[in-house]
C-alpha cells in the first residue's frame, strides 16, 4: 500500500486532488481511498487530505502518519506545519515553490522535488489554483498513478476548455519532474 498526504490551504483544492488520485488509481485497476483531515474548513487555513493506493481492498481508516509521498501545495505552509512529519526516508516530497530546495531547510531524508506550480497554473489556467498541476508533478515523480488514468480522472471532473487546460497543466508539470 502507498500512502499520500497532501498539505494545502483551504480553497486550494487539496481534497479534490486526493479524490482525483483515488479515481486515477482505480482506473489503474487498483483499490484506493481518499479523505480529508476533517477540519473546520476555512479559506486560507492549513488543511490536509489523504489518499491510499493498494492492490487489495483498503480497510484501514486512520489518518496517515508515515506517508510514502507528501504533496505541498503552498510553500508558506513550511513555516507553520511540519509537512515532512513521518515521511518515509525512501519517500518523496513534492513542493510547489520557486525557491531552490536547499533553501527550504526541510528536515527529511526523503527526496525533495520542487516545482513552480503556481507559475505553470498562472500561465495555463490563468489562476493560481495548483492542485491539478501538483497532481501532474506527483504522477511524474512517483509513477504511482498512470498519466492516462490521471488524465481520464481530470477529464471526468473538468469538462470543456477547463478540462483541456488542466490536462495541459498536468502534462507540463509531469514532464518537468520526469
Amino acid at each position, binding site marked *: 500500500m502507498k500512502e499520500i498526504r497532501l498539505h494545502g490551504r483551504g480553497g486550494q483544492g487539496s481534497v479534490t486532488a486526493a*479524490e482525483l488520485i483515488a479515481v486515477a488509481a482505480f482506473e489503474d485497476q487498483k483499490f484506493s481511498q481518499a479523505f480529508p483531515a476533517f477540519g473546520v474548513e476555512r479559506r486560507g487555513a492549513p488543511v490536509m487530505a489523504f489518499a491510499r493506493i493498494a492492490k487489495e481492498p483498503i480497510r484501514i481508516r486512520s489518518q496517515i502518519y508515515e506517508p510514502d509521498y507528501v504533496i505541498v501545495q503552498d510553500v508558506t505552509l513550511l513555516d507553520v506545519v511540519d509537512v515532512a512529519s513521518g515521511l518515509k526516508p525512501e519517500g518523496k516530497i513534492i513542493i510547489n515553490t520557486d525557491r531552490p530546495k536547499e533553501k527550504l531547510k526541510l528536515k527529511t531524508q526523503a527526496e525533495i522535488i520542487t516545482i513552480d506550480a503556481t507559475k505553470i497554473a498562472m500561465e495555463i489556467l490563468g489562476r493560481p489554483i495548483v492542485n491539478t498541476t501538483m497532481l501532474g508533478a506527483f504522477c511524474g515523480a512517483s509513477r504511482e498513478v498512470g498519466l492516462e488514468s490521471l488524465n481520464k480522472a481530470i477529464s471526468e471532473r473538468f469538462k470543456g476548455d477547463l478540462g483541456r487546460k488542466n490536462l495541459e497543466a498536468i502534462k507540463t508539470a509531469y514532464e518537468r519532474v520526469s
Partner: protein
Amino acid sequence: MSQKMSPPIQKDPQKRAASMRVVEGSYAVAHAVMCSMPDVISAYPITPQTHIVEHLSQMVADGATDAEFLTVDSEFSALSVLVGSSAMGGRSYSSTTSQGLALMYEVLYNVSGMRLPVVMTVANRAMGAPLNIWNDHQDSIGARDVGWIQLYVENVQEAMDATPQAYKIAEDLDIRTPVMVCMDGFILTHVYEPVELLDKERVRSFLPPYRPEHILDPANPYTFGAFADPSTYTEFRYQQCEAMVKSMAKIEKAASEFQEIFGRYYGGLIDTYRTDDAEVIIIAMGSVVGTIKDAIDQMRAAGKRVGLVKIRSYRPFPVKALKDALKNAQVIAVLEKDVSVGYEAGLTTDLKAAFYNSNLRMPIVGFSAGLGGRDITIHDIERLVQKAEAARAGIESEFEFLTLRKEIL
C-alpha cells in the same frame, strides 16, 4: 423448527468489479435512498450529514426519483414531517447527526411508538458541549432506548447496501419498526472509495413496494399514537419489544436475501474476523472495524491470537449470536466511541449484562476511544490488546479511556 439462515460468508465483499466507481460516501448513500424509491424525503442540513441531502436534492431535481423533497426549519420538523408521510403510507427518509438527532428525540419515540417504518441515516458525530463536529457514536448510542433498530456499518459499500435492507426490515408487517443506519461522520460520509453502485431495478426485486396494513385515510379512519392510559400503555411497549426480538431473524434474512441478489454480505446481526482460535477478541462497530482487521492481521503475523466481532445490529442487541461468537475467548475487549458519564459506556455494559446469567466467565474490559474524532490507529489497537491480555491475570480497570492525554488534564 427454526429456519436459521447461514449463508456462506463472503469474506471479501469488496472484490473489484468492473462496475465499481470511486464515489463519496454521502453520494453512495443518497444513491441507495434513490434506488429504494422513497415517497418523501425531509432534509435539514447539518455537518457531516449535509452532503447526503444535497445529493438527494440534486437527484430529485434531475428527476432520478419522484420523491417529495421537503426542506424544513429544523430536525424536529424533519422527523415530524415523516410521522405524517409514513402514517399516510409513504416510504419516508431523512438523515441527521449529533445535535440534530438530539433535537429529534421526542419525535424518535413518536415514530417507533406509532410503528412507522421510517429509515434514517445517522452520520455519527460527537455531542456538544464542547462543540465538536467530528465522529464518535455518542449521538446514536444516546438514542439507544428510543425503540429504533440501529445498524452500524463498516464502509461505504455497507452503508449503501444497508439502506434498502433497512427498509425491508422496517416495513415487514411483523416488525413495523424504524431503522437508523449509523455511519461514521466524515470517516465514511466524506471518504472517496470504490463501490459498486446499486441498480434501481435490482433493488426493486429485493425491496417490494411499501404496502402498509393501516394508513391515515379519511375514507377509512384510524388513529395513530393515541392516548394510552395505564391499562394499555405497557402492552404497547411489550409489543415493540416483541417486534425487536422478531427483527433479529428478519435482519439476518434481509442480509441473506440481499446476498442472493447482489452477492455482498456483511454478517447478519454480527460478523466475525479470525475468531476461531482467538484468545483475545475485540468487539467494535462502525468504521474502526476496518482498522482493527488490519491490526489483527499484523498481530497474527507476530503470533498473537486475536480476533474481532463486529456488531452490525446494536438494537436489537444480538445476545445469542454474541455468546456463540465469544464463548471460546479468554478475554474480551470492547472498543467503543461513546461514554455513559457516570457508568462505563453502552456496549461494554450491555455485553457484561448479556453474559452475567450465563456460564461465560471470561474477563470483559471496556475502552472508550475515538471521542470527538480522535484518530484510532493500529498502534492504539495493539495497546488495547496488550491491556486486554493483562486483564487475564486480573482486571485492574473494567473501563478506561484508551487514548487519554493525561498531560493536558
